[in-house]
């Protein structure tokens, strides 16, 4: 059941058992972070970790993905900078007199393959200045923007490239029909 509707694009998918183990280790690290070296906490933590790993595999059986540590570091710096810019942008609009913006919903074609990279892209868009995803279709997304303009698409393209670098992907084509 878990392997049924998987369109796998990666080279060699690890077995479900191995994926469960990987996720259980990840969840254990998070639990360890929450509780410190309190070993009694594992009475609760042990079952919770196993349950969480199992549920995550049921909800999202997808195989593991590749990501580049260098891309991640670059992305973290970019993300922190853009978050501050996004917060500042909203604060400025909220506190300045008058409503000086021209919002609307635009359609943006997707170039990232379906899967974790695309989901991550859509999540991050909502945290960046002036953009929030309101619908995800197979070939495009609808984004609510605070200011319509040509810069929005350029910024989304730039973000898309950074996400592709983070996940070690190459984008299908540089330009897509609008």
């Amino acid at each position, binding site marked *: 059941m878990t392997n049924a509707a998987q369109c796998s694009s990666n080279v060699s998918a690890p077995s479900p058992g191995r994926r469960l183990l990987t996720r259980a280790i990840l969840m254990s690290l998070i639990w360890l972070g929450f509780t410190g070296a309190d070993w009694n906490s594992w009475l609760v933590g042990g079952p919770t970790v196993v349950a969480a790993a199992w549920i995550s595999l049921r909800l999202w059986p997808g195989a593991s993905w590749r990501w580049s540590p260098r891309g991640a570091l670059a992305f973290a710096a970019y993300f922190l900078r853009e978050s*501050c810019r996004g917060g500042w942008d909203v*604060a400025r609009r909220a506190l300045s007199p008058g409503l000086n913006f021209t919002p609307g919903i635009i359609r943006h074609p997707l170039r990232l393959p379906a899967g974790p990279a695309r989901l991550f892209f859509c999540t991050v868009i909502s945290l960046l200045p002036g953009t*929030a995803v309101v619908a995800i279709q197979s070939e495009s997304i609808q984004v609510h923007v605070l200011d319509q303009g040509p810069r929005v698409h350029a910024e989304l393209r730039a973000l898309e490239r950074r996400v592709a670098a983070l996940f070690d992907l190459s984008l299908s084509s540089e330009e897509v029909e609008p």
Partner: protein
Amino acid sequence: MTILDLITGLLLLAALFFFVAGTVGLLRFPDLYSRLHALTKADNVGLGFAVLALMLQAQSWSEVFKLGLIWVLVLAASATVCFLIGNEALRRGVKPWTGKSP
């Protein structure tokens, strides 16, 4: 009062500024979609500053990690909720404000 306490205070003031601005945006922005921006962006940065301030006062690295994890989890939840609300509004045919009508 050490220099660390001073920095903590300044970071908390920055956090306060973004939370207030986000709330003002929530009240002032013209439609549901714009209000989502006020909540997700300003509050995330506000929480980021609050978390940084508390990290400076943490007693152990485990606390620093915990605070960092809380920020990341809140970011993920906030982006997800933002999408769910926006998506549901779009499905129900809520029209975005474009500045043309009064």
